[in-house]
């Protein structure tokens, strides 16, 4: 077998092609939503929500309801609970995520250990798997991506305003509460749809890394959306390919490809881009106001 043949070999397997398509869709989906999540300072929510949905995965078969439906409803309920607790301002978002989602994850582990499950294998749920991506999984992923793109296109301004300045958005005709709930719905559906490919423990990275890299590369919100979505889908494709060749769980390779992209961009752009991504609010590296176009009276 020539090198070229061995490189193209995976494409001869139907399960790989399905997995590849799924990884591209999952990467694009997470990359797109990740922009909103990271700019809202909620990077940890992907991690928490995937753990919460794990509880739903375990509980749904025991309750006799379809796994997708049960886990989805569980994830959405967890996301809304996090939102409600955070809005009450008694504890911070990070603490709310910690309480709600780890409790849900612990419940999932307890149920799986005690009763077993008829759903996806434990390891596959934790780290993602190239195997067993069904037509139904692809439909779910495609549907989630279309849903997310539609929501973020039609409500572009409302989401941008409520992400940048929720207080003023609220008095300017944007229902911030509704936007928050809708974002949680999109996020829950997306985490649920991508869980099989990327895994509970690694979903957060696919939400955060492409968005952070996009922020390092651009000062424009709309450009960030394109870069993050593009990087997410590319990392999904390359990661899935490496998963097949190296026989490593797909979630792991997808995240590692994302991490390499981050390191390459960091090496090329340097600390300035990292400061931009970290959201540091200092003016020390800026030209003096007088050097800017004068706006004074």
């Amino acid at each position, binding site marked *: 077998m020539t090198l070229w043949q061995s490189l193209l070999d995976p494409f001869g397997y139907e399960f790989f092609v399905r997995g590849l398509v799924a990884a591209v869709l999952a990467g694009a989906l997470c990359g797109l939503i990740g922009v909103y999540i990271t*700019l809202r300072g909620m990077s940890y929510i992907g991690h928490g929500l995937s753990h919460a949905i794990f509880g739903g995965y375990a509980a749904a078969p025991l309750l006799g309801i379809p796994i997708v439906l049960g886990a989805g409803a569980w994830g959405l309920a967890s996301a809304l609970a996090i939102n409600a607790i955070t809005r009450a301002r008694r504890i911070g978002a990070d603490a709310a995520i910690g309480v709600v989602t780890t409790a849900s994850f612990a419940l999932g582990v307890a149920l799986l250990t005690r009763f077993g499950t008829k759903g996806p294998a434990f390891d596959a749920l934790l780290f993602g798997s190239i195997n067993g991506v069904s037509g139904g999984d692809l439909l779910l992923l495609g549907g989630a991506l279309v849903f997310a793109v539609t929501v973020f*296109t*039609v*409500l*572009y*301004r*409302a989401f*941008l*305003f409520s*992400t*940048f*300045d929720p*207080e*003023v*958005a*609220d*008095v*300017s*005709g*944007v229902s911030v509460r509704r936007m928050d709930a809708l974002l949680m719905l999109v996020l829950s559906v997306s985490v649920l749809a991508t869980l099989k490919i990327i895994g509970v423990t690694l979903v957060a990275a696919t939400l955060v890394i492409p968005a952070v890299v996009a*922020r390092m590369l*651009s*000062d*424009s*919100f*709309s*450009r*960030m959306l394109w870069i993050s979505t593009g990087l997410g889908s590319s990392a999904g494709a390359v990661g899935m390919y490496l998963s097949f060749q190296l026989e490593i769980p797909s979630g792991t390779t997808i995240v590692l490809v994302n991490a390499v992209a981050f390191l390459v961009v960091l090496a090329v752009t340097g600390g300035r881009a990292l400061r*931009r991504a970290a*959201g*540091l*609010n200092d*003016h020390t590296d*800026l*030209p003096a*106001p007088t050097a*800017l*176009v004068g*706006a*004074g*009276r």
Partner: protein
Amino acid sequence: MDLTSPRIGPLVTATGVSFGYDRTPVLLDIDYTVEPGGFTGIVGPSGSGKTSLLKLLLGTVRPQRGQIQRQPGLAVSYVPQLETVNWSFPVTVAECVLMSRSTRRLLPWATAAEKADVAAVLERLGIAELAGRHIRELSGGQQQRMFIARALLRRPQLLLMDEPTSGVDIGTRHEVLHLLDDLNREGLAIVLTTHDLNGMAAHLPHLVALQRRIVAAGSPQEVIVPHVLEQTFGARMDVLQHLGMPVVVDGGEPARLRPVAG
């Protein structure tokens, strides 16, 4: 841009309003009216309820007791404190201003009419050349102008501002004051909060001294007086006169600061 309001009667009226978070009272028995074309500064120390009063006027919180009545169809805009803004957020000046435009449009990009409106309001505020710049690249005065532009794009009758000169230098403070004065002369009613008595409050036509209750209301000459300041800020302060305006000095060292007569 014509800001003159054809409406008559108060824009907002607060009657017997009390407000608090949980069981902690923040405002008690507030009676206050925002008149068309008025320009009021709410002064008081941290925790005196200034921001809460703004939020009540804005309608983002509801009174626990009493009533807030707004003129039907009243357009109110709000400018937050600069210090609460994430200045590294990836938007340009024009994008930021455009945010306040109607959110009913189903496509993300701006129409030609919207772009023209943004250009006009930026021109009016003297920052048209900065439209394509990232918001992080603005000076304090330019940041404040950008947010005022965003507020004006909604064509408000009432502009509410939370500490517009907090943390800015003297030049910026003058710049903001002059701009607000111009907008007020064009008919825009303005209510702002400030704890800066000499730099800001003394220059405004009308003041409200707040310490959970309204301690005093009137012109700077009526409000910036020692007994009102002591009741409001809980500390003794002396008031000097300079070019017909009150100047507050620390009451702890009156002898050193008192000007020599003669």
